[in-house]
């Protein structure tokens, strides 16, 4: 009897439709969020994450509607990220039926926002999302080092993701979503060293993200990356693998799963 590791399918949503970016550039349309959520739930998804990538302000209201629809019929935890910048954004998503919000760029711009949101709504609903690129130790002999990037990977911040993780947890983040921007969409697996380094330095759960191409990658995220949950989009999204298959595969590697 033990806590299960989680599989979290991620749905990128643009103007109310599900899409998936490959390295945030090449985007393919693939469906209605409620339909996709229903399918993932029936396959045994442990949670769902919606990432709103809508660029325009007007289009952003659609995510609220999507969350309301999904929360009204799918009874597993829902996380919403993308464009969460104010206390009011957080409140709006939670009121729509989200259980957690993922905060990314807004935390970099104003770390106090995380503290304020956690105090107001509880640590359990604040997921701190980190997009990191490896900046040393990859093609040179230097010790490995990463840096946080914002604005879809265009803007370097000079922030070390490991120090940042510890700081954000001390501010009240209840969970960390760690995405390797080098690996995202490349399908070569998570950045295991980055995930493990962060997971081993904080008390809160860590979700590994970015780079899943096959089911072994999911298992590696837990076994070698020390992740508490694994997030993936395209391998589920284009039905390359079902979530049920992924869970069975992870369980066969000795990982505690909810089957």
């Amino acid at each position, binding site marked *: 009897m033990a806590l299960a590791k989680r599989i979290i399918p991620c749905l990128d949503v643009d103007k109310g439709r599900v899409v998936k970016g490959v390295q945030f550039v090449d985007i393919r349309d693939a469906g209605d969020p409620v339909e996709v959520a229903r399918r993932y739930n029936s396959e045994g998804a442990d949670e769902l994450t919606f990432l709103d990538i809508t660029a325009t302000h007007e289009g952003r209201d659609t995510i609220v509607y999507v969350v309301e629809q999904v929360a009204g019929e799918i009874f*597993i*935890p829902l996380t919403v990220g993308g464009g969460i910048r104010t206390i009011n954004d957080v409140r709006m998503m939670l*009121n729509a039926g989200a259980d957690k919000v993922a905060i990314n760029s807004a935390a970099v711009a104003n770390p106090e926002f995380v503290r304020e949101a956690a105090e107001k709504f509880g640590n359990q609903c604040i997921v701190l999302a980190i997009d990191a690129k490896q900046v040393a130790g990859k093609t040179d002999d230097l010790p490995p080092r990463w840096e946080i990037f914002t604005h879809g990977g265009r803007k370097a911040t000079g922030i070390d993701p490991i120090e940042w993780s510890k700081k954000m947890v001390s501010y009240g983040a209840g969970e960390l979503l760690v995405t390797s921007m080098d690996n995202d969409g490349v399908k070569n697996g998570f950045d295991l060293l980055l995930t493990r380094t962060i997971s081993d330095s904080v008390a809160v759960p860590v979700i590994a993200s970015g780079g899943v191409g096959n089911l072994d990658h999911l298992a590696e995220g837990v076994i070698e990356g020390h992740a508490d949950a694994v997030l993936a989009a395209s391998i589920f999204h284009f039905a390359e693998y079902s979530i049920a298959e992924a869970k069975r595969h992870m369980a066969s590697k000795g990982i505690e799963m909810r089957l």
Partner: protein
Amino acid sequence: MTLSTHSTLSSTVAVIDYGMGNLHSVAKALEHANAHAKILLTSDKQQIANADRVILPGVGSIRDCIGEMERLDLVDSIKQAAATKPFLGICIGMQALMTHSAENEGVNCLDIIPGEVERFSDQLSDPLARGAAADHHLKIPHMGWNQVNQQIKHPLWQNITQNQRFYFVHSYFVVPQSPEPIAGSTIYGHPVCVALAQENIFATQFHPEKSSDAGLQLFANFIDWDGTYNASTNC
């Protein structure tokens, strides 16, 4: 999914809305669990008094939770409901039923079920882990799907398999004064009481409204429950 439910009579369920978190999913899940039930999200004392059954949900910190109950003058209504009709506490709503919580430098709770609320230790490790994994500290909060071992037979466990997984997210857990009210337990570093049963009261540390089919079944059972439970008939 087919839920097992036999009630088609209208039953009013008051979900106490005292400003602690979003109750949308609790209400929606109850509606899914039993289409005939009338679900009220309310902080109105009269509605709580008139309801057939009452749910005390909650997320956030215990100090805010008890503070809001007091500010809205709901303490007596909650105690009255917990003494007289089918009553379900969820998460903080379970912890609030105890005598005292260690959260927020110590907070006195409703003292309906004698016992304490304690924090998970930062040094928890998995008693079953072997090799390298044994060195890892367990994360806090206890977040995700864990198995619930039903310690007693109870109408709320009906049609739910033994050791079913439910969704948890919490850093504090209840320690009842006597083991008698323990209805369910899990293991997170050590055995943890995650469900309580005392006469017409049932309480869960996990979130039925986030626990998919098993959670909906528990809600359906609650709506069907007449509030009777006699601990001494359990074997």
